[in-house]
Structure formats: structure tokens, C-alpha cells
């Protein structure tokens, strides 16, 4: 995305707030599950994977055992494949089988809900989890499908024409979440899930 004329961009979460949100979500997940037994964290690429690893580490610090963590790429299950040239496919890594597991899907931003819908369909072809939960760093509203998150780092009301940008140190070199007003025509088409 090019940085055109003055973007009105404001930071809504700084590094410390992100860390606290992750720690809180890690506790919530363990609490809802009454411990770590059966848990598998699957992050949705790209930043969902990083978040999943951070949550797993936080949970390991609390429980003293490591939580199986992996990645679930959903490109092939998207409902909008035909609207753009062929998209590159990301990496899927299942640390263990998902049959009878409690799978926690992890993503950075929950928006229309379509990405999560694709993830649920993908998960369905991989096995039959006992339960599927959703943990997101940001819920920005504007759902188009009946999808809701179980664990939310921050609820962030936004306008449809705003863009939420999550940056994580492992990928972007810095930890912060910003909102940018996006007037470009492609903003609606490119919206992520």
C-alpha cells in the first residue's frame, strides 16, 4: 500500500498494551478450557501464527507444559478466489492430529468473519475437533457472517473505510496496532477477514 497524502493514522495499541492483551487472552483460554489438556493452537498466516506462538509461550509459562502450536493456511478455502489473480498459498503445519482436540484458531484481526469461516471448513477436512474456539487480537466489527470470537484482545469499533494495521516485531520489527483512514478504492476489495 503506498503512503499517499497525509494519512490520518492513530495508534490504538502500543507494544505494552499488546503484551498485556496476549497475557490476558492466554489466561482466558486456559480458564475456559480448565487447563491445557487437549489444547492445540493454530494460527492463521501470517500474523496469526506469530500471535499463536506468543500465546503458547504465555500459556507454557503459566502451566509449565508446552502447548502444541501450528499454522492453518486457509487460502484454498476462501470464498473469493475468483475475484483476483491466483493467490499464493501459505504454509500449513499441524503439530498433532486435530481429532478430539480443542483447537484454538488465532488471528490478528476479526472483520467480516469470512477468513474464520474458511478456517472452519479447512479444519473440517483435517479431522473432527472436540471443540473449536477463536482468539483474536482485534475485533473491529462489521461481521458479514454469524461468527464471533471467544477471546478478544481489544474490541475496536471502526468505520468500514478504515484500515486496521497490526505490526508484530517478529515480522514487522515493531509491535503496534494502528488505524489508517483508507480512501483508496481497493480498500473494500482487499479487506481481510
Amino acid at each position, binding site marked *: 500500500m503506498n503512503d499517499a497524502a497525509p494519512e490520518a493514522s492513530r495508534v490504538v495499541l502500543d507494544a505494552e498494551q499488546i503484551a498485556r492483551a496476549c497475557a490476558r487472552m492466554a489466561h482466558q483460554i486456559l480458564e475456559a478450557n480448565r487447563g491445557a489438556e487437549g489444547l492445540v493452537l493454530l494460527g492463521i498466516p501470517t500474523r496469526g501464527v506469530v500471535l499463536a506462538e506468543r500465546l503458547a509461550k504465555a500459556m507454557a509459562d503459566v502451566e509449565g507444559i508446552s502447548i502444541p502450536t501450528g499454522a492453518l*493456511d486457509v*487460502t*484454498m*478455502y476462501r470464498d473469493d*478466489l*475468483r*475475484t*483476483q*489473480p*491466483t*493467490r*499464493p*498459498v501459505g*504454509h*500449513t503445519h499441524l503439530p498433532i492430529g486435530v481429532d478430539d482436540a480443542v483447537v484454538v484458531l488465532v488471528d490478528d484481526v476479526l472483520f467480516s468473519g469470512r477468513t474464520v469461516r474458511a478456517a472452519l*471448513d479447512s479444519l*473440517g*477436512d*483435517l*479431522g473432527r475437533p472436540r471443540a473449536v474456539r477463536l482468539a483474536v487480537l482485534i475485533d473491529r466489527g462489521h461481521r458479514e457472517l454469524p461468527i464471533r470470537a471467544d477471546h478478544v484482545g481489544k474490541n475496536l469499533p471502526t468505520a468500514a473505510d478504515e484500515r486496521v494495521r497490526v505490526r508484530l516485531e517478529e515480522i514487522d520489527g515493531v509491535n503496534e496496532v494502528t488505524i489508517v483512514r483508507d480512501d483508496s478504492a481497493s480498500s473494500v476489495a482487499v479487506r481481510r477477514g
Partner: protein
Amino acid sequence: MRHLLSAADLDLTSATELMDLAEEMSLLQGRPVKKLPALRGRTVVNLFFEDSTRTRSSFEIAGKWLSADVINVSAKGSSVSKGESLRDTVLTVAAMGVDALVIRHHASGAPRQATEWIDAHVLNAGDGTHEHPTQAMLDAFTLRRHFRKSEPGLADFAGKTIAIVGDVTHSRVARSNLLLLQTLGADVVLVAPPTLLPAGVETWPARVCTELDEVLPIVDAVMMLRVQRERMSGGYFPTPREYTIGYGLTWPRLQLLKPGAAICHPGPMNRGLEISAEAADAANSLILDQVAAGVAIRMSVLYSLLGGADDTPPPSAREGVAA
């Protein structure tokens, strides 16, 4: 990418992406549900003018695992003798509303000619002695996995020397492999008796050598090509034994290879002619891996062709031979 007609259609970036994608696709083989919805609603026709159970089923499985509707049309038996032109055959099949034609033909150039007549995507599954791009892709994919065992994260084949040995003149696999390996940065050496080297080979991006024993010690991989016994009647070589002694990968020749050097063969093999049983079954033989890679590679190619928007406008009203 609109069509895949030649290995030269791929540059380093697209070839790498296709191989990376094939790694993902290959994970499907171990899953209970071997299905991805990406090509749901797309129709793929395997239009084979030449028999090939292996390649055809490989494409069929690849399409079906991507949820495409796959149909096999066998057009064997020269269309010339049936009075139907190639153009008519291709147009008739395409008129049913297909998204992609996978064409195998005994004559070089037929898939390329087809692209002039129809709007669908065309995938070359082997045309005469010209090219077989998905074979080259799966050979490269198999070699990359082999090289990554000792060099994890290897990005391309720079610094690797690879020999292609045998009937280069009549081999579409040789042409495609040479182009793709060269794109991937490898140094290619062609080894054959002079009668089996094509006209103009001196203009190809490869070294040429007629002595196999000189080449084997320096290669990181050797690809053996199938030699047809019928070539004897064309005067290409005098006897099978002379061919084997001069150019076959015999058991003694295995000792000349570097440790870790890979052995490849596109199949089907003439055990005892161009390749000994010992070589085919050697520890560093990748022949079975090549076969296994076929579905994953073809899935990645089909997805690349059909998994996105058809943004390329179809060829507009063509001039050419007007009615």
C-alpha cells in the same frame, strides 16, 4: 499464467513458487480427506492423443483433489485418418465449456496450435519430441528435496552440475529439463552418441559430451533418458549392447558417481539397456520419488492456472486463415 506449454514459460520466481506450492500440496497425501475446494466448479479435460496411463491418472487425481470436474477424452488414433482435423477435435471438446485442456499429442506443437483456436487454458502434457513441462517440474522438485537433505533451505540449483544422458534428439523430457534446470541456475551437460544429439545442439544452453565416464564423477545428479530399441533401425546406434557399454548407467559406472549424487529417470525404464537394475534400485535413486511427486506438482500447476480470476482477456477475433 494463462497456459503452460513449455518449461521456458517459467522464470526462477514462478518455478520456485510452483515447487513451494507443491510442497504444500504433497501434505494432502497424508490426510484423511484428500480434497481442497479451490477448483470447485472448474472443468478440466484430459485430451490425450497418445496413451499414457501414468500421466493421465496423475492429472486426473490432481484435478479431483482440487475439487475440479475432470473428464478424460481419448483421441487416440490419428485424427488425420478419421478425417477430423486437429482443430475440429479441439474445438469440439472446448465447446462443451471447459476451463482447461490438458493435451498430450504425438506431434510437437499441437498444444501451442490449440491455443490459437480456443479460449480455455492449455496445459502441455507432452507433445511429440518437443516438451513435457510438468515432468521437468516434478524432476526439479524431486531434486530440490534431495539437495535440501544436505543443504536445508537451498533456494536454487546454482553451482549444481546435472547430466542428461541418452536419446536427446527424440526426448521431450530432455528439452524441458534442460530449460528448467538452466532457469534454476544449474550447469547442464548432455551426454549422447552424436547420432542422438539434435540439430543445432551447439546453440543450446548446455555443454555437450560424448563420453559418459568423463562426466559422471563431476555431477550432482544424472538423468537417464529412455532409449527406444526401434532407434536401431534408423541407424542411430548399431546394437543395444554397444549402447549400454557406451552410455548405459551400469553397475560399474555407479562407482564413478560422487557420494550423494542422485539418479533420475522419467520412466518407463528399459532395465538393462540405458539403466541397470542396480542403478534403478540404488540408495540414491530418486525414480520412485519422481513418480510420487507427479500429483503434487500437477496440483500446483492446475491451481496456478485456474485458481484465480480469469483476468486475461481471451484472444480477440483472430485473423489468420479467414474463411
